[in-house]
C-alpha cells in the first residue's frame, strides 16, 4: 500500500512539474480574486471577519480548480485502466490523490496567503501566523478529502466541470463556516484575538468523518 501510494504521488508530482497545470492556475486565480475583491468591495485594506471571509471564499474557489483537474489525465490518458491492472489496493489511489491535492493546496496557499497579506490585509500577519497555519492545514485536509471524492465522482460524468462545483460547494460549507470563524479573530485589527477551540474541533471532526467515509466509498468509484 505504502509503495503504491508513494509511486502514485511521485507520478502526479512529476506530471505537475512537467506540465505546471493545477498549482499555477490556483495561485493566479487567488491573486486575481484578491484584485477583484479590492475593486468589488472598494476597500484599501480588510480586517476581521471580512478579511477572513474574503480569504476563505477565495481559497475554496481556488481549490475547486484543483479538484477539477485532479483526475482528468487519469481518465484521458488511461491512468485508471493502468492502475486497475496493477495488483494494488484501490484505496491507494484515494490516499495518493488526497495527498497530492493537499500538497497543491499548501503550495498555492503559501503564495495566496502572502499575496493576501501584502495586497489586502490591514493588520500584520506575523503574530497570528502559527494559529492561521493550523486552521489552514485542518481545512486543507478536509478540502483534499472531499475534493478527491468529488473529483473522482465527477470525472466520469459528461458534465464534469459543472458537477464539481455544484457538489463540492455545498459540501464544503461546514468547512468554510468553521475556517472563516476560526480565522476571523486572528485577522482582527489591534492584535490577534484568541483562537476558538470549537471551530478547530469542527474542522477536525469534518476531516475525520469525511476522510473515513471517502476512504470507504472510493472503491466504488473505480471501474471493475
Amino acid at each position: 500500500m505504502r509503495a503504491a501510494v508513494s509511486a502514485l504521488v511521485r507520478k502526479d508530482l512529476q506530471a505537475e512539474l512537467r506540465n505546471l497545470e493545477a498549482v499555477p492556475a490556483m495561485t493566479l486565480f487567488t491573486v486575481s480574486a484578491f484584485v477583484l475583491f479590492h475593486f468589488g468591495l472598494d476597500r484599501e485594506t480588510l480586517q476581521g471577519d471580512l478579511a477572513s471571509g474574503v480569504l476563505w471564499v477565495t481559497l475554496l474557489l481556488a481549490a475547486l480548480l484543483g479538484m477539477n483537474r485532479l483526475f482528468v489525465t487519469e481518465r484521458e490518458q488511461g491512468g485508471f485502466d493502468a492502475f486497475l491492472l496493477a495488483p494494488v489496493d484501490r484505496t491507494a489511489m484515494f490516499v495518493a490523490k488526497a495527498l497530492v491535492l493537499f500538497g497543491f493546496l499548501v503550495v498555492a496557499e503559501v503564495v495566496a496567503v502572502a499575496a493576501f497579506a501584502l495586497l489586502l490585509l490591514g493588520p500584520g500577519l506575523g503574530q497570528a501566523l502559527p494559529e492561521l497555519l493550523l486552521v489552514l492545514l485542518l481545512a486543507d485536509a478536509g478540502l483534499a478529502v472531499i475534493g478527491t471524492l468529488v473529483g473522482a465522482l465527477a470525472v466520469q460524468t459528461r458534465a464534469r466541470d459543472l458537477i464539481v462545483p455544484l457538489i463540492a460547494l455545498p459540501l464544503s460549507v461546514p468547512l468554510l463556516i468553521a475556517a472563516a470563524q476560526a480565522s476571523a479573530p486572528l485577522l482582527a485589527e489591534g492584535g490577534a484575538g484568541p483562537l476558538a477551540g470549537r471551530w478547530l474541533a469542527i474542522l477536525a471532526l469534518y476531516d475525520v468523518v469525511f476522510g473515513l467515509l471517502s476512504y470507504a466509498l472510493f472503491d466504488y468509484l473505480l471501474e471493475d
Partner: protein
Amino acid sequence: MFGRGLKIFSLLSAVLVTGAFALAFFYAPEDADQGLRQKIFYVHVPLGIVTLAGFVAGGIYAVRFLRSGDRAHDLRSYVAIHMSLIFGVGALLTGSLWAKAAWGSWWVWNEPTLVSFLIVFLLYACYQPLRFSIEDPGRQARYAAVFACVGGAFVPLNFMAVRLAQPLIHPRTLSSTANLPGSVSFTFLVALVAMAVLFTTLCKYELASKTAAMQLRSIRRRLSGEDISPLADPSRRSAAPQRL
C-alpha cells in the same frame, strides 16, 4: 413488486392527514402571540423533519445497494431522495411564509435551521443532474449511491456546524416539546406521523409506477424483439434508474 399495501397506505394517509388538519384547527389552542398564523407549524415542521429523514433514508438504501448490488435498493434510494426534494420545496416555501408572518421577512440569514436546510437542499439538488450526466446504468447507480452516502452523513454534520455558528431564534422543536401544552405536542405528533405516512405512501406509489413502467418496457422489448432501451434513444433518457 412494490404494489402491495398501496390501498391501506393511501387510506391511512388520507385519514391521518385529514385528522392532523382537523386537530390543528379545532383541537390545538390558538397561539397567544401569532394567532391563526401559527397553524402553519403543523405543516412546516413535519415537512422539514420528514425531508431530512428521507435524505438519510436515501443514504441508508444507498449503503445497502453498495453492499448487496441489488438494483431495487438503488431505486428505493432514488425515490426517497426524489420525494424528499419535493417535500423540501414544500418545507422551504412554508418556512418562508411563516418567517414573513412571524419575523417580518421572507428569509432570515441568522437562523441556523433555515440556512442549514437550504445548504442540504442545494446539495441534494445536484443528485439528479449527477445521475443524468452518467450514461452507463451500472455506473450511474454506483456513483449516485456514493453521493447519497456522503449526503446522508453530511446532513447531521452540516446542521451541527451551522448551529454552532449562529445564535438561536428558531425553536428546537423536538427538544422543546416538553415546554409545549399537551394538546399542541399531541397535534404536532399526529401531524408528524401523518406526514411520514404520506411520504411513505407517495414513495410506494412512485416505486410501483417505476417498476410497472420497467416491466412494460421489458415486455415490449421482448415482443418487438428490437432494442428500445433508453440508452438507444437519447430523447427518453432520464435520471431515474431504468432497470432492476
